[in-house]
């Protein structure tokens, strides 16, 4: 049992199937030539839920995030973000829909040439009319939210940060414009157990305090158990299990048992 077990309250299964359309994939396929990367992926994420997509390396977990953002167009199927099909919208609509999401990349993807301040302020400078003071104040606020001292890190470049700090700055950048949907690609890979726990708690805090919906791609079962309200297990481009972490833990499916053990 983790200290957050009581927080794993997902919508009932029938509700998940019917109305969970904050992010919804319907029968999504992705192929490169003869190679099928994803085959018939379908799931929905309810408002305020955290879906963890688990699976081994190279099964297409991160590809799902890229499809949700339309960094990759699916071969077929629909990808709905807040009810709008992101695969069928115009370029301008796509840019607006992407602003409704925040993405934390596996390698953090902070802009090398910009300081922490400018990295975090970037989405605000791009998409809002806030003045400099308001931007500075918002940057301080989100850096404090991710447990970084603005005074210590604001003027540092990404190369001067540790792995855990980079992740936290990346999360700060992803939430600074208050998107209702967050996507995490392996948020704890390469981090030590203590930093991993800190990042997990931060993701939980985002759900509990800000009510964001999240899709987290990970192969870290401990992290998934801490943060997920729902888990999906991917094998060879197909979802072979979907349910709450508890249901996954109790599953009799052979691959699920093998993966958990």
């Amino acid at each position: 049992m983790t200290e957050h077990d009581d927080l794993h309250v997902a919508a009932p299964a029938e509700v998940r199937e019917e109305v969970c359309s904050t992010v919804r994939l319907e029968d999504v396929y992705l192929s490169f030539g003869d190679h099928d990367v994803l085959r018939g992926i379908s799931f929905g994420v309810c408002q305020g839920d955290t879906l963890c997509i688990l699976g081994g390396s190279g099964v297409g977990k991160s590809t799902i995030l890229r499809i949700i953002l339309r960094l990759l167009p699916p071969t077929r199927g629909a990808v709905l973000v807040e009810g709008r099909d992101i695969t069928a919208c115009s370029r301008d609509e796509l840019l607006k829909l992407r602003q409704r999401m925040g993405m934390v990349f596996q390698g953090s993807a902070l802009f090398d040439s910009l300081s922490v301040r400018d990295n975090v302020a970037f989405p605000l400078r791009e998409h809002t009319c806030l003045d400099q003071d308001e931007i500075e104040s918002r940057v301080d606020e989100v850096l404090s939210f991710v447990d970084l001292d603005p005074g210590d890190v604001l003027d540092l470049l990404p190369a001067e940060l540790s792995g855990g700090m980079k992740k936290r700055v990346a999360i700060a950048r992803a939430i600074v414009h208050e998107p209702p949907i967050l996507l995490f690609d392996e948020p704890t890979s390469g981090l030590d157990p203590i930093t991993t726990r800190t990042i997990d708690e931060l993701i939980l805090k985002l759900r509990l305090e800000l009510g964001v919906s999240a899709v987290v791609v990970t192969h870290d079962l401990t992290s998934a158990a801490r943060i997920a309200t729902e888990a999906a297990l991917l094998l060879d481009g197909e979802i072979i299990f979907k349910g709450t972490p508890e249901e996954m833990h109790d599953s009799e499916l052979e691959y699920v048992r093998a993966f958990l053990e």
Partner: protein
Amino acid sequence: MSEASARRAAAQLTRDAVFRVALSVQEYFALLARLLRACVTRPFYGRALILQMDTIGVASLFIVLLTGLFTGMVLALQSAVEMEQFGATIYIGRVVGASAVRELGPVLTALIVTGRAGAGMAAAIGAMKVTEQVDALRTMGVDPVRRLVAPRFLAALIMFPLLTVIADLVAILGGMLIAVAKLGLTPDLYIRSVYSVLSENGFIFRYLPIDLVQGLGKPLVFGALMALTSCYYGLKTSGGTEGVGQATTRAVVVSSVLILATDYFMTQIVLVLFL
């Protein structure tokens, strides 16, 4: 392997290569179309433009000055050897002026700046691509063509002609150094000689010497080619740090070849239309 199957394999390889080239050309022009749209519609990135003008222009100034100076000096030296035989050294300014303004100034400046700034562009964008920073831009609703390519493209359009004018002037001055120090010409005679060659091909709009227009039109095109090609290869980078190196090399090689080939065709067009 039989001869027939070897022929089939060779034909397949050729088809694949042709397909890849056709696809690259299509992507190149698609990028150009998106770039032109980004250059004339909001939002504009003024700060990024100034930064790129500094990177392309100011940072390349020293090497362009050196290139211009030594080009002018060597032109004068080489020409003097031949012209002294006919007692025609007073026409050294004509040779240096015409060569520098029409061809060597624009082409050498373009090649030097491509080697420096073009490689930098491809490497910078390529590194951003492989570390997912380009994807990060896209996920934040920012068009990478608008944010990364347009400022570099516009900066190259502005800075290439300016650098070329500077290179031309310094080359003419370099030629004058040799003409005065080694051949005993007066500066006045040398400058008159330069002016006479630049004005003898006539003028466009009454006041603009055709040679000058030709000499300034070329760097505009060369700058556009260099920026577009370098950014194209940068955005296509894949395969980690090794991919960045390959993209950088391809950017410089393809840009240089395009610049040299375009120079020939532009010269041909000017000769047909105006002379």
